[in-house]
């Protein structure tokens, strides 16, 4: 039989630069590669020597789509290292800010980047031609996420109001309260979009993933918790390196995360949902049920639904926080110079994001380690691709290519994040 090559040189509708390469020899799958060719930016290298209090603003620049994830992870780790705590009011405001990022990022992905896959369209603009209401609703919802970040953080991409120890200035109560009506609309809109998307034709694909996420006894995890998994893992954040490790492969400018035994695992909405279904609000669970989802979702293509349910949750949660908001006073706690080591871990929209710093006595960074979700998911993405290709060998090349891309987009991969960290090697020209 002839050789078939499915290749996408530059994946569209993902954040960053990635490519896909599949080589088939008849029914034999010879290669499946999800390549990341986004050039590395060396954050961990050049952060060494910087004041630890700069870590949130610097690491924010790893990713414009999920800056809050970096700001929060870095803040947690540095606060721990410098030995300061914050207050419940500050933590509530941080959680609300993070809700903004979830809404913005999830809606961007689900409605504008992923939904076109199910409709056979090139982009959201094409959806707007036949279904302008849907796109308008999604845009308004996305804007709501951004507004949340602007009101609390000052701007939506790389907010300026966040700092080690809290916020530069606590937003006024009236401005936070004023968000509530739109958040209430948002929860409803997210529910409607979930149900609309539930009508998509989902490829039949199920896999018994090893779901890894933060777990928390009371809250659906966003900013805090232990690291837990569907196979019984339950560790404090500080033990991350004892259970997970990263590997460098030739085809990718990003490290690949695996369990210590070499197995792949999955982080992100499906993992969060499955590991914390009980902590979702009853209204979100109702939406899930109506959308045909049980407490465990193993079909990666249905991640689009789980994302939208998380948007509903984030709107409800932000409205709840806004309702009882009091301006934190003080708005921040001052961190002293001191040596220390700290870990931070939060749930970025795409999944677990881990930060780890060692700081010297002058408060300067000695060592930085950042593990973003997309690198952790890379081995699982390739495993999914292999499975999807194997199950669809009969498809024409174009259709198969489309399906493969869609498989990658199930992960909302953020390639910019994944390639932040390689240490510098120089190719002089």
């Amino acid at each position: 039989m002839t050789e078939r090559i499915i290749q996408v040189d530059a994946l569209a509708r993902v954040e960053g630069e990635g490519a896909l390469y599949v080589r088939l020899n008849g029914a034999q799958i010879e290669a499946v590669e999800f390549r990341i060719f986004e050039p590395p930016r060396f954050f961990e290298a050049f952060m060494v020597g910087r004041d630890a209090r700069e870590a949130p603003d610097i690491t924010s620049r790893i990713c414009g789509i999920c800056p809050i994830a970096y700001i929060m992870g870095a803040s947690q780790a540095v606060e721990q290292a410098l030995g300061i705590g914050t207050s419940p009011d500050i933590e509530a405001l941080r959680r609300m800010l993070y809700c903004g990022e979830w809404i913005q990022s999830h809606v961007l992905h689900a409605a504008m980047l992923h939904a076109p896959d199910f409709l056979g369209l090139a982009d959201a603009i094409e959806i707007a031609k036949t279904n302008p209401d849907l796109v308008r609703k999604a845009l308004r919802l996305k804007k709501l996420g951004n507004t949340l970040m602007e009101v609390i953080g000052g701007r939506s991409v790389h907010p300026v109001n966040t700092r080690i120890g809290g916020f530069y200035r606590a937003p006024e109560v009236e401005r936070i309260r004023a968000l509530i009506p739109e958040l209430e609309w948002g929860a409803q809109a997210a529910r409607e979009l979930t149900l609309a998307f539930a009508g998509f034709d989902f490829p039949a694909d199920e896999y018994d993933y090893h779901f890894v996420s933060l777990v928390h006894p009371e809250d659906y995890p966003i900013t805090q918790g232990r690291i837990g998994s569907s196979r019984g893992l339950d560790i404090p954040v500080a033990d991350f390196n004892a259970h997970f490790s990263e590997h460098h492969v030739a085809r990718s400018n990003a490290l690949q995360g695996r369990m210590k035994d070499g197995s792949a695992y999955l982080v992100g909405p499906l993992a969060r949902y499955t590991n914390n279904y009980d902590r979702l609000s009853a209204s979100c669970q109702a939406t899930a049920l109506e959308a045909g989802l049980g407490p465990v979702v193993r079909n990666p293509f249905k991640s689009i639904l789980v994302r939208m349910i998380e948007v509903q949750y984030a709107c409800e949660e932000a409205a709840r926080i806004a309702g009882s908001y009091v301006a934190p006073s003080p708005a921040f706690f001052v961190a002293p110079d001191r040596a220390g080591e700290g870990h931070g871990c939060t749930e970025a929209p795409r999944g677990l994001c881990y930060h780890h710093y060692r700081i010297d006595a002058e408060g300067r960074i000695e060592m930085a380690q950042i593990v973003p979700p997309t690198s952790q998911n890379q081995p699982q993405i390739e495993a999914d691709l292999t499975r999807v290709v194997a199950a669809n060998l009969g498809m024409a090349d174009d259709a198969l290519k489309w399906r493969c891309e869609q498989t990658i987009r199930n992960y909302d991969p953020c390639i910019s994040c994944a390639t932040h960290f390689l240490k510098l090697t120089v190719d002089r020209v």
Partner: protein
Amino acid sequence: MAPRPKLAVWKFASCDGCQLTLLDCEDELLAIADALDIAQFLEATKVATDGPYDVSLVEGSITTAHDAQRIRDIRAQTKTLITIGACATAGGTQSLRNFADVDAYTSMVYAHPDYISTLATSTPISDHVKVDFELRGCPVSKHQLLELISATLAGRKPHVPLTSQCTECKQHGTTCVTVAHGIPCLGPVTQAGCGNLCPSVGRGCYGCFGPKETPNAAALSAQMAGLGLPPRALRDLYRSFNAAAPEFQAESKRHD
């Protein structure tokens, strides 16, 4: 109706934040798609029409030999090339590598250094090709981005003042954080445009819009040193998202 101008959006080494700022124009996005023929925008669409392009928006800096070639190809197909953001305009955060002792970095060899190829520096687009307009910011401001797009459509010169951040503070009625609170602030040497974000939350400007026209960084540094900022902190203040912008680079080196 005249054919709609063809817009292409390109990415180099960056965080995607500036492109995202375009997608964050939720209220205007459909009107933009109406007014412009979006011919390339990998982050948002599978549509990929060949050049030539009327307008190219370029995000990110040049960090690989391959990208250095790619930007030349894009320039060749583009009528008006506009860079968006600190990465594309000044090399971005990743230009911090430019200040590193390259040999020391090389010795921090990774498991398989041969897998990666990168240049020793991160450089702005204008180091490689002619740039018609540079939009500042890390990220760019939505307001300025929309102004740039509408001005380009109308054949108008975009209103993007090159003056200090202070001008925005004063226009917004924000009290000067340096004078009133003794907080070090790069505002007097930083270009306006963000919408007065940091000082309005009581924070000193950290320079994400890069140097203003004719900045006098030495005089500002002397004042900040007087407020108690040690040389290392002064150096790092200039050495962030626009570290490789010539005026900031020179000033940070004075405090090395």
